[in-house]
């Protein structure tokens, strides 16, 4: 990172060499690179992500904690929306395979995958905020403010979840044990909810890990478009401003979060599929 040209103070008004030297000394930029690296790593391990270069007097930790709740809130809404819409439409599509109730949700979900959030968001704003004036253009204050961003961020994931649910359900419903359940006299809803659902949702659950990772990184764009004061927007700004510590800090933080959620997703997979646990126990 340090090897790249351009330092954090270059953009500021011209400062005299002495002041430069003092600033560099304060932020330890004049130390040899390996010492800087060592310092950074030990600090990170201690949980101290250092001060922000861009905004003197504020530490990275502070700024992360400031932006995090908003981003988490946005992510949660988007995820809940994605799961609700995705799973229901996927199950319906699987049950009514090859009818309109299958084609329409699947086409919409294809659209969700093909139209990126930075295109979808503005288009939605164009339609709903500017043209119809039903919803606010940007910001994060009232509930109305939260609708479009959550939808924009969640759309692509709803699309994936929908396709995965459909696929998972179809796969399970074609299995022999579904026929056994019917032969026992179970009603269709019992067959679907009690027998098919657990296995059918398997692909959705394995998708949760990457989905959360995607939601976190997707928040950059959504927050930028809708002017939402969350971690994503800070990250984008830091990248532009070459705020080293901020970038490092947020990257480490986000990476840790993502790795954590992938782990949780793996654990959930094992809980849902007892066979996996058994195989794992055996080896």
């Amino acid at each position, binding site marked *: 990172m340090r090897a790249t040209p351009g330092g954090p103070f270059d953009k500021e008004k011209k400062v005299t060499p002495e002041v430069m030297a003092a600033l560099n000394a304060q932020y330890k930029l004049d130390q040899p690179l390996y010492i800087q690296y060592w310092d950074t790593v030990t600090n990170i391990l201690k949980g101290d992500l250092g001060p922000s270069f861009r905004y003197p007097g504020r530490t990275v930790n502070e700024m992360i904690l400031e932006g995090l709740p908003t981003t988490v809130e946005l992510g949660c809404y988007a995820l809940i929306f994605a799961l609700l819409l995705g799973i229901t439409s996927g199950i319906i599509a699987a049950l009514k395979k090859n009818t309109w109730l299958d084609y329409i949700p699947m086409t919409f979900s294809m659209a969700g995958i093909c139209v990126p959030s930075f295109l979808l968001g503005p288009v939605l704003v164009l339609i709903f905020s500017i043209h119809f004036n039903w919803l606010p253009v940007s910001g994060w204050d009232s509930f109305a403010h939260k609708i479009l961003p959550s939808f924009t961020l969640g759309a692509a994931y709803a699309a994936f979840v929908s396709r995965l649910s459909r696929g998972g359900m179809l796969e399970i419903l074609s*299995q*022999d*044990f579904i*026929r*056994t*359940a*019917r*032969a*026992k*006299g*179970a*009603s269709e809803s*019992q067959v679907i909810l*009690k*027998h098919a659902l*657990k*296995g059918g949702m398997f692909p959705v659950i394995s998708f949760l890990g990457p989905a959360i990772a995607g939601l976190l990184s997707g928040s950059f764009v959504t927050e930028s478009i809708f002017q939402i004061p969350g971690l994503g927007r800070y990250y984008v700004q830091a990248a532009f401003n070459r705020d080293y510590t901020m970038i490092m800090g947020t990257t480490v933080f986000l990476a840790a979060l993502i790795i954590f959620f992938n782990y949780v997703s793996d654990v959930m997979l094992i809980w*849902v*599929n*007892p*066979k996996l646990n*058994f195989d794992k126990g055996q080896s």
Partner: protein
Amino acid sequence: MLEVKDLKTYFYTRNGVYRAVEGISFSVKRGEVLGIVGESGSGKSVSQYSLLRLIPSPPGKIVGGTATFDGVDLLNCSQAELQKIRGKKISMIFQDPMTCLNPYMTIGDQIMEPLFIHDKLSKEEAVKKAKNALEEVGIQDALNRLKSYPHELSGGMRQRVMIAMALITEPELLIADEPTTALDVTVQAQILDLIKALQKKKNTGVIFITHDLGVIAGIADRVMVMYAGQVVETAPTAQLFEKPSHPYTRALLSSSPALHARGERLKTISGLPPDLSKEIKGCAFADRCPERNDRNCGSENPKLVELYKDHFVANCEACIHHSPSNTSKA
């Protein structure tokens, strides 16, 4: 108890209409074991699944016929009525217990499910009954076993679980679709004995589907031989083995390894089963029949006729006027 007339089930696929069951009729009395024998593709399984309407509905369709069980028209009754019969009055066990048991549910939950659906028992009562059922099928440590998952059990045990699950509601009719085919020979014998014992004890009617004549000999009271979606011969078991009349039955018997002396060359039936997506003119077995005549075998499809008491066979010369010296004793 069960009376089936002229059942027809077709599959409508991209490549044509597959006539899996082309007009079969049979009946099962209370407490009787009917064996259905035939090679793969003969329609034996499809015909029984049709009774409970377990055929996947595109592409399959029950095209004709009637099936009456204790006065209820199985093929046309409402879904609600059908669900009351499935698992309670008529139960099924399937060929491959690994794929037929839900891998995500404990076997306890699966065994108790029919009790909750039909008999509306409380949890405690159901657990007790399930434990007894497992013990009846010979599974030790039943109470703990209830918490196991299917993949934790061996093949033979899984099949026992299936049997327990099917019999727990004391059905009047049990349909067993090749329950021993996927098992080792020793386990096969155990399972067969188990089914026989339980059947006698509860006086359950049984329809036993298999391709193995040896198994049929051991368990069935009457046998129905199917070929290409049709019934070619039906008779009481001993009678069938003593006086097999249809060329196909005779060929089956003579090709059975168990019925040959050591070192003798196995006999096979030449040719392949017919393509059921094409309409068959005349007798379906004609192409492979060693006794075909060219007068009517290719043009008429012979109907069943009662040759001996309770012994029905297709009405053709080869069947009726055969030479007894070709048969082997069971």
